[in-house]
């Protein structure tokens, strides 16, 4: 009972931050909507590229245009939700280097969660809108398929955030890894948005381990095509593993954290 209450409390805490972040972002209303529209346009541009590609070359290793739509929709929704709810994770490395965790360490909440949810990226809503729109318009899913799509995208979002936590936490051990984090993020997004079948050998293994792009787009795509419990179990297992790994790695690093003695305010 106590755990259920604690879980409910955490959800309320996350919800409060989510609303506060959204209100803060909407303070600059024009910029907020401009970022959303521009991200939406960006995603549509990529679909335009793939549409042009498939007009000229109809098949890539058995892939069709709708597969690319699913690929883009699941990755965009996963990454979009991740950045919308846990938007501050991209600043984790900078916070660690600059002693910015001080403001969170004195709080009664779990530090990693608190850091991650205390910021949002308004453009992420453009990704979310694109993903939902593209999936509903091009795939016309039934309620069950739509539910599965949303569930898989939420799982992809958690994998994406855990990966960024792992990259950001490297700052505890290696110092300034902001550049590395950005490069890894770029690589993850790039690999997630291309048909997985064009890669082979060692790269394929890497995409299901070190750079988990396969779990962000390819596995959800397979499950949306033909749902299979073993594959779904595999995705759940990987999600659990990477979340625990990220939390453990952050905790391990936190022991090495040195305060910046900064007089700061957590707003």
């Amino acid at each position, binding site marked *: 009972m106590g755990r259920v209450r604690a879980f409910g409390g955490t959800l309320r805490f996350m919800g409060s931050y989510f609303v506060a972040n959204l209100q803060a972002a909407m303070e*600059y209303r*024009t*910029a907020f909507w*401009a*970022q959303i529209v*521009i*991200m939406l*346009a*960006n995603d549509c*541009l*990529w679909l*335009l*590229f793939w549409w*042009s*590609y498939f*007009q*000229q*070359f109809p*098949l*890539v*290793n058995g892939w069709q245009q709708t597969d690319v739509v699913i690929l883009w929709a699941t990755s965009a929704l996963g990454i979009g939700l991740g950045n919308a709810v846990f938007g501050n994770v991209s600043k984790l490395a900078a916070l660690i280097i600059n002693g910015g965790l001080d403001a969170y360490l004195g709080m009664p909440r779990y530090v990693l969660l608190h850091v991650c949810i205390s910021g949002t990226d308004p*453009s992420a809503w453009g990704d979310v809108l694109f993903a939902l729109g593209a999936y509903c318009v091009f795939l016309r899913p039934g309620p069950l398929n739509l539910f599965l799509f949303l569930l898989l995208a939420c799982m992809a979002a958690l994998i994406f955030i855990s990966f960024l936590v792992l990259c950001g936490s490297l700052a505890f051990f290696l110092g300034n890894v902001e*550049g*590395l984090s950005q*490069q890894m993020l*770029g*690589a993850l997004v*790039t*690999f997630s948005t*291309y*048909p997985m*079948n*064009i*890669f082979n050998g060692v*790269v394929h293994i890497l995409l299901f381990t070190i750079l988990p792009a396969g779990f962000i787009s390819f596995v959800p795509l397979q499950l949306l095509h033909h749902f299979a419990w073993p594959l779904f179990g595999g995705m759940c297992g990987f999600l659990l593993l990477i979340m625990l790994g990220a939390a453990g790695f952050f905790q391990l690093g936190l022991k090495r954290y040195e305060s910046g003695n900064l007089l700061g305010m957590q707003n």
Partner: protein
Amino acid sequence: MDLAQEAQPWQRRSGPLQRLRLTSLKYLAILRVSAANNLAYLPEIVFRTLFLIVLIYVIGQLWQTTFILHNSAILRGFTVNSMIWYLAAAETLATSLPALTRRIDQEVRSGELAYLLGRPCSYLFYNYAHYLGERLVRLTINGTVAALVALIYVGPPHFTWMGLAAWPLMVLLAISIEFLCYFGIGLLAFWTENTQSFSFIFSRLTLVLGGVLAPIEIFPQPLRTLAQILPFSSMLYGPARTLVQFETASFVGLVWQQVITLSVVSLLILGLYRLATRRVSINGG
């Protein structure tokens, strides 16, 4: 006869030339300082080429698979070799862009622009020299890395000496057009709350319609014609295509397109710059 008076015609002729020489030296010094600043952080720039390697690998794999599946040695006029070298050239240009818009945006917002305007140099040319210095360092490093990746991927390129000779001119014109576009977007900070979104969508338009992911030939009509007319193609597709498949007629056409684009964009940006500087108000302090 007054010697001073006798020297006047000579002075009148050399005066502007001398000024031009001094002005050039001034901006050349800014360019050198900017390049030196970037060379000081060489490991970071080299490290940032990781994304370039990923891009060439991923897009290269897509095209290699396409060639294999279509069981064809030539697709839309490209062999596997020329396609990979085309991608390497286009991505070298695309990934070597410095964060110009962010800098201009910050200078406008922080008010630093007011101090920079008071310097004995044009703010526009100061930024152009600064940008060129940074861009040249990035181009050199990214070009080397991209060439190595392409070399490992598909072996040596089949460039002609004419393509290689034309490359610096095409690149200079292309990066000058890009400079003006991103400088203009940065100046929008005078009117808008956030210019990063505009910069982001412009870079994405450049990626897709500029031919970084694939040559423009893959677009169906009328999108292909539209992409060729828009300035994006003269920034990336044109130079990269001319490097790998040099044709005199298309080279001349490209240079004309670049010169016309540069002229039109220059006029627009100068107009925008005048409007923007009128909004600068300097309060003592």
